[in-house]
């Protein structure tokens, strides 16, 4: 009898403690739930009265704000295309071709990508981009992100492709397909879920990053939202809270939607390897 009571009380105690930790985690975000809908939002927590979308109207009327979101989209989509295409081709080759030392290549790339972090390598990345004359261009941001994210993306995808039986492509080739046809028509559709995961992961990474565009870009009309958001301050240096709150929410939406999409579609999974 006591042991059932024991279990029961543990369960209650854990529930209370979990709820408490959950509330503590939620506290810093509560303000962020209300402020975007409050036309008189300040740093203080207040229930909007009335709820209003006027802050969003302000954002949509601000050409510079929209420009920032557009730039984020350009840079993220550009990076994602390079990461997706590059990683798919490379990991397919690492999985299916007789290149010597494939495992060593994979691990060395992974090692490099975890050692060369953005904060350790900001000087040489700046100098290299400067050297090839791409400072203050969006393409520079795209290329730097693509290079940095590719090793992990290849690692994830290679795992995925290794788990697919070779007989798929082999039977296509017995039927007369060329290796390239076997790749595009047979392997690619099977790999697609893996590519989706990599693409979403890369998108979220680029979309949310601050440091790389902050270092590589100068002109305000090229800044992604992560950097552009810092210009929403009045001339006195105080933040325009209404604009910032609504903008933050708009800027967060793609990340939230993608997260919900991935956890609904794939559940949450862990991939081996070291995150960039």
């Amino acid at each position, binding site marked *: 009898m006591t042991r059932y009571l024991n279990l029961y009380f543990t369960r209650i105690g854990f529930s209370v403690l979990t709820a408490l930790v959950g509330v503590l985690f939620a506290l810093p975000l509560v303000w962020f739930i209300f402020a975007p809908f409050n036309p008189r939002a300040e740093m*203080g927590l207040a229930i909007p009265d009335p709820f209003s979308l006027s802050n969003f109207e302000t954002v949509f009327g601000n050409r510079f704000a929209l420009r920032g979101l557009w730039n984020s989209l350009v840079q993220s989509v550009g990076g994602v295309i390079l990461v997706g295409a590059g990683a798919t081709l490379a990991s397919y080759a690492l999985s299916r071709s007789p290149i010597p030392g494939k495992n060593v290549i994979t691990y060395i790339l992974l090692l490099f990508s975890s*050692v060369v972090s953005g904060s350790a390598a900001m000087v040489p990345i700046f100098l290299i981009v400067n050297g090839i004359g791409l400072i203050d261009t969006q393409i520079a941001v795209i290329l730097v992100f693509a290079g940095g994210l590719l090793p992990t993306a290849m690692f994830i995808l290679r795992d995925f492709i290794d788990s697919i039986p070779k007989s798929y492509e082999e039977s296509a080739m017995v039927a007369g397909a060329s290796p390239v046809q076997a790749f595009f028509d047979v392997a690619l559709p099977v790999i697609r879920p893996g590519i989706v995961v990599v693409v979403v992961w890369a998108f979220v990474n680029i979309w949310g990053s601050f440091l790389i565009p902050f270092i590589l870009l100068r002109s305000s009309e090229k800044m992604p939202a992560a950097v552009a958001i810092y210009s929403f301050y009045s001339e006195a240096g105080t933040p325009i809270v209404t604009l910032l709150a609504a903008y933050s929410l708009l800027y967060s939406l793609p990340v939230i939607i993608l997260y919900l999409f991935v956890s609904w579609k794939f559940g949450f999974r862990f991939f081996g390897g070291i995150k960039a």
Partner: protein
Amino acid sequence: MRSFSLLSRSAGAAFLTPAGLLIGAFVIAPFFWVIYVSFTNRTLLGRTAMNPDFVGFANYFSLFDAASFFTRGEFGFSLILTVQFVLLSALAGQAALGMLLAWMLQSVPKSLKRLTEAVVIAAWILPEVVVAFAWFAFLDYENGTLNMIMDALGLPPGDWLLSFPFWVIVVFNTWRGTAFSMMLFNSAFSSIPPSYFQAADVAGATSWQKFRDIGLPLIRGHVVTDLILITMWTFNVFTPFLLTSGGPSYRTEILPIYTYRVAFRDFEFGKGAAVGVIVMLINLVFALFYLWVTRRRAKGVAA
């Protein structure tokens, strides 16, 4: 039997080329370039921007200058601050809290589990500038949510970012990153066969005993993985910059922020590169350790 390969060697090489070029230019080249720059007096502007001189170990000597090593705003101070930051926010904060949450989530009602996970994960996935701004509002002296709560509890309000900047970034980084450890431990705990715990229940074990004698030993491998990864990430994290810019008076200037200031505010690229090299060496130690652990584990499974 000779294994039949689907892709010829040359086709394989062609497939590898695009990724190889990008990684070569923006990961491998920076690795070697930063070592080279750290031995020069390269600056952003002026004569040494175009024709930097080779200065040997001068940048490293200036970083490790015993006279100023521990002074605020110098390398040694920043290094020690970073170590404290990692120990407190990653190991004592994220890992311990993540472990506690993961363990409790095994036995709380489903709906509470879902809700708690959603909040903790939200702190992790939202863009860094957004959470930094939310924290600004949270910590605001006049109207912030935290001081509102302090007031309701009858406690004096605090000007947190000015009075306790280091503790702010420690708590902030714990809040930001706990989700990863929680999810990793959560999936590790769920992979333990329930019968183990049921047997312990029959024997009348408390939750702590089950954790100590069954849960923790069985997920030891995951704990090691988690500790190495979050240590590396926290060691390289730039996000606190968005909250404090390294200040006030260098009190939150962890190494990534220090590197940024030396290179892009003071324009001393050579010195900034030398810091980068040291950070990469430390990263390398952790990464090699990680690979060694995972490879050993893979072998253990095969044997």
